[in-house]
Structure formats: structure tokens, C-alpha cells
């Protein structure tokens, strides 16, 4: 008896929903799979919030080409296996028109075979250069690559005349990929790696590794890592009294790092997307109004902004612009239009995509920043 009541309710609810759907134009479906929980949650969380905020905003302003956007999202927890099954579900069951997601490089790389086979535009929000190199027909990405971050760090080292560098990196995917780039690019910039230490991302103390680095003759230390570990490295260096310039990666370009490392963070340099130093940009910079607007909106709703949510903003806006130019969500046309994105001003920089470049950012999209007085300062 009880079952009957429930099935009646369900059926009438479905009928009602069907009637409503028939009344309005079909929404454009944006699929997303992000690592909202798990170790990469500090990336995935602001990404999802950004997508939700702007999809709502675009719908409030009438949608795209008179059609509403519908965001379908799954949380991978940073697990590549889940990413694969969720992307399959998005493509086959949910019939989405485009996918924006893939918080981590692992998640992204795992779904690329399916995306390529099914032929659906996919804008990844992950960092590693291997996502777009070699170019894959349906795959794009919006964040800077780790290779760009490394190049920026080495450029700055060269300017300061420092050639002997010690590496200390974590054991995550981001860390390992970054370490590889650090090793690969070093000869090009005339840099000698004199020490190469690693730690576990959940370790609580790195003084042993740093003690080993000290007698290596390094002139600077580069730490590629995420989460709390880089803050511990920074504090441990101060504790040991190692007075060398410390470079961090763009992975810690958030206020949390400064809060955790406290005074020890003073003088730390890192390549960061301009979002963290938006206020310091000259007034004529075309990116400035976009950055400030995103920052204001995000902070009004969710608290301190991070560069990672900005990547989702860039991805969504590039997708929406491409759908508009394509006149609708036709997959092949949208793909072509994404590839034709030129002069698009996003939070990460100015995007100029091409058939050979599916990211479209140049090295100057990164700014070398230094932490001074507990805040980011652009290094000229």
C-alpha cells in the first residue's frame, strides 16, 4: 500500500517535470567532474563554487542564445577511476554538450581516451603540460602549465645570478610532474641541480631533508608542492636558519600559505596568476576589471579567492563564448570555435588558442611575486 502511494507520487512528479520541460527550450547541459573532496579539494572546491555561481548568473541574465545552462556535476574525490566512470556517465547517460572539469592532471589524463573517442569538447582545469602536448583534438585547458611555472622561476634565478639550486618536492602527482619539469628545464637556463630531496605530502617535519641540502652548496631552494607541506618546509628552513632564497610553486598561491607559514613566509617568491595581485596591476591593464569583478563576487559569496576557481571561470566563459559563436551546442562546431578563441581576457591571462596550442597562455600570464608584510608583491 505504502509503495503504491510512493510510486503514484513519483509518477505525478515525473509527469509534472516532463510538462515543464516541454514548455521551455531544452537547457544546454554542461557536465563537470571535479575533486571537490579529498587531497585536491582546495582546487576542486573553489572550481565548483565558481561554476555554480556563474551558471546561476548567466541563467539569471537569460542564458545562452535564449537557452538556460544546466550544470551536472560529480565529485571524483581526486580519484582517477571515479573520474573515468563519471565522465562516461556524463557523456552516455546525461548527454551533456560539453565537459568542463578534471581538477587534477591524473583525473584529466584518465578521461581523455573516452573524450577523444566520443568526440565531446572538454576543457580541463588541471595543470600539467602533457594534457595539451601533444595537442588532442577535443581537449583544451585553462590553467598555466607547471613548465611555465618552472620557466618563470628559472628566469628569476638567472636575473639574480643564482645557478646552483636544491630541489625539495612532495610525493603527489603535481609535485612529481613539477620536479620533472625542474630537472628537464635546468640545462636550458644554465642551472645546476645540486640536491634533489623529497617528502611525503602528509609529513609533519622536513628538517632532515633540509639539513641534507644545507652542505650541498645550493644558492637557492625550490619547493614544488601543495597543501600544508610547503608551509612546513618554509617554517623548517627558518627554524634551521637556512638563509637562502626560497621559491615555491604556483600551487601555494593562496592566502592559506601565508597564514600557515607566518613570518617564515617573508621573502618567499613564487610564480602566480595575476589574480592574487589584481589590485597592484596598473589601471590600464585590460585584465584588471575582470579580475577585480571575479574577486569581488567570489569573496562576497564564499570568502577569500584563490587562483584555482579562476580557472573554472575561464573555462566556463570560453565555453559560453564558443557556444554563442557556434549558434548552439553542436559539439563539432563548439570545438572549432573554442580552438578559434583569440584575445579572450580571462583571470589567468589573455587566451590565444590555435590548432597547435590548446591552452593559449603565454609566459607573461604568470607574475613573479614575493611575500612581503604578509601580502603578495609583484617583483619587477
Amino acid at each position: 500500500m505504502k509503495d503504491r502511494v510512493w510510486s503514484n507520487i513519483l509518477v505525478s512528479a515525473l509527469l509534472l517535470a516532463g510538462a515543464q520541460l516541454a514548455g521551455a527550450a531544452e537547457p544546454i547541459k554542461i557536465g563537470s567532474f571535479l575533486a571537490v573532496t579529498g587531497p585536491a579539494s582546495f582546487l576542486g572546491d573553489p572550481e565548483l563554487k565558481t561554476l555554480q555561481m556563474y551558471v546561476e548568473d548567466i541563467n539569471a541574465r537569460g542564458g545562452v542564445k535564449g537557452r538556460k545552462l544546466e550544470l551536472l556535476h560529480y565529485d571524483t574525490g581526486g580519484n582517477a577511476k571515479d573520474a573515468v566512470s563519471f565522465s562516461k556517465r556524463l557523456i552516455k547517460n546525461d548527454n551533456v554538450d560539453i565537459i568542463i572539469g578534471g581538477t587534477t592532471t591524473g583525473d584529466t589524463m584518465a578521461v581523455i581516451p573516452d573524450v577523444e573517442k566520443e568526440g565531446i569538447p572538454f576543457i580541463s582545469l588541471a595543470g600539467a603540460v602533457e594534457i595539451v602536448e601533444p595537442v588532442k583534438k577535443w581537449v583544451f585547458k585553462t590553467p598555466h602549465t607547471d613548465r611555465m611555472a618552472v620557466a618563470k622561476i628559472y628566469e628569476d634565478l638567472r636575473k639574480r645570478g643564482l645557478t646552483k639550486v636544491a630541489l625539495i618536492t612532495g610525493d603527489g602527482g603535481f609535485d612529481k610532474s613539477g620536479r620533472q619539469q625542474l630537472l628537464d628545464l635546468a640545462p636550458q637556463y644554465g642551472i645546476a641541480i645540486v640536491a634533489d630531496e623529497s617528502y611525503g605530502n602528509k609529513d609533519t617535519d622536513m628538517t632532515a631533508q633540509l639539513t641534507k641540502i644545507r652542505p650541498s652548496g645550493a644558492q637557492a631552494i625550490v619547493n614544488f608542492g601543495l597543501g600544508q607541506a610547503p608551509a612546513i618546509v618554509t617554517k623548517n628552513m627558518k627554524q634551521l636558519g637556512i638563509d637562502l632564497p626560497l621559491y615555491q610553486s604556483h600551487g601555494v598561491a593562496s592566502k592559506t600559505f601565508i597564514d600557515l607559514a607566518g613570518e617564515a613566509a617573508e621573502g618567499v617568491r613564487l610564480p602566480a596568476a595575476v589574480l592574487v595581485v589584481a589590485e597592484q596591476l596598473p589601471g590600464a591593464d585590460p585584465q584588471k576589471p575582470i579580475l577585480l569583478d571575479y574577486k569581488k563576487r567570489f569573496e562576497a559569496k564564499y570568502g577569500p579567492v584563490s587562483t584555482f576557481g579562476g580557472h573554472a571561470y575561464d573555462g566556463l566563459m570560453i565555453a559560453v563564448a564558443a557556444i554563442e559563436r557556434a549558434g548552439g551546442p553542436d559539439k563539432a562546431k563548439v570545438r572549432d570555435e573554442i580552438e578559434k578563441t583569440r584575445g579572450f581576457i580571462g583571470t589567468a591571462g589573455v587566451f590565444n588558442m590555435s590548432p597547435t596550442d590548446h591552452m593559449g597562455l603565454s609566459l607573461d600570464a604568470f607574475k613573479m611575486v614575493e611575500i612581503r608584510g604578509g601580502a603578495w608583491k609583484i617583483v619587477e
Partner: protein
Amino acid sequence: MPEQLLQFLATGVTVGSIYALVGLGFALIYNASDVVNFAQGEFVMLGAMTTVALLNAGLPLALAGVVATLLTALVGLLLERFAIEPAAGASVVSTIIITIGAAIFLRGVVLLLWGKGFHALPPFTGDAPIQFWGATLLPQSLWVLGITALLVVLVRAFFNHTLLGKALLACSFNRNAAQLVGINVRVMLRLAYALSAALGALAGILVAPITFTSYEAGVMLGLKGFSAAIVGGIGNPMGAVAGGLLLGVLESLGAGLISSGYKDAIAFLFVLMVLFFEPTGLFGHKTAERV
């Protein structure tokens, strides 16, 4: 090189004392009920996270720490009352699985309440490093070491010299016999959970200035603390401390002298060796089942 070696040792002692302190918490519940409480790491995290929250709400550090410890003790008590007690007749393994569930639950609640961010507590007495013969140690590490030592003495005295402590031990040896001599086993178990939760919270507050904290911080600390406890012989507070220090020093020497990539492997290999040759731990009691 001698300075380096000294620094590795100092690092090892710092890390080891953290493991020791967490390992200590496992002893209490184990002593009362033969159960390994896998939510112990979550008590550690809960203590630190609650202190952070109270600190942000404007309470002074000392008061925030005390309130957080009491609140965590209350959580321990509730956990026993509403998750462990209803399964009173269940086997030890079932109870252990319940504690794993409780750990996941607590992590989830903290995640919903306070988010995913990392937080730091200010060190109790500044963070100017203490120099000695070329090596350095943070003042907070001395706090951890000192309070660990104090707690070991207190826990030992509690079990050996108080009626309450002896009653707790009696519950673990033989629950029915304990009941027959008039010990209220239920109350004893609640007490054990509340006490070990408080102990865990205290550990969390002490180590948070060094290790930072987040909703997931309890996982790693719990695992390492548990390793410390079994190396030393679970149920033996002194053993947990010795095990923790040994584990920390091994990790740090492994990272410094051999390879930082293999430091956890080296430490866990040691744990396996200990369990292989001394299944009851280095300082564990030899148990004999009477048939």
C-alpha cells in the same frame, strides 16, 4: 657531519614525540576493553580544530584549549554511549569496525562545520628556534616532549595506583568478574572513552603549531600513533612513547642518511620486523590464553 647527525636526531625526537603522544591515547581504551579505537586520530584532529574555531571566536589560547579538550571528551563519551554501547555483545573486531565508522563520521562532521582548509595554532612560547651544538629545536617540541612525559607518568600512576584505574584494567581482563566484584563496567567504558578523547585532544592542541591541522589531519597522526603503540606493545603507555620516539628517529635518520623517498618504507619495515620477532611489541606483556 656530527651537527647533521644531531639535527637528524633532534628532528626524529620532535616527530617521534608527536607519534608518542598520539600513541598514548590508544593505550587507555585498549586497556579498558581490548579494543583498538581507530577514531583516536580523529580525537586528535577534533581537539586541534575545535581550539582553532574557539580561538577564531575570540577566546584566549589557554581557555580555548581547555574548552576544546572538554568538548572532545564529551564527544568520546557520546561515541561510547551511542555507538559502542548498543553493540555491547559484539566481538572486539565488530567494535573496532564501529570505531572506523565513527572516525569517518567525525571527519565528515568537521568537514561540514569548518571546511577543508588547513589551520595553524600559535606556538605556546614563540617560535625562536633553540640552538644547541649546531642543531636546532623548536620550543613547541619541548612542550610536546615535556607534556608527553608528564602524561605518561600520570597515565601510569592512574592505572597502577588508583582504584579507578585498577577497576578499568579489571574490565579488560575479565568483564564478568569485574562486574561480580561490583565494578560498573558501563560507566568504566564511558570513562575510558572520555579520558582517551581528552588525551587525544590535548595531543592535537600540542602538535597543531608544528604540524598544522585540517579535517583530515587525524588520519596520518592516527596511523603513526597506532604504529607507535604496537611497536611499544599496545596497552603499555611507556611502550607507546618508546615506540613513537623510535619510529620518529628512524624516519628522520632514514630520510637524512639513506633516502628521503624511502623514509616511510624504512620506518614501516622496522614496524614489521618488530611484529615479526616480538608480536606483542617491544614492551608488551606476554599474553597466555587460558583454555
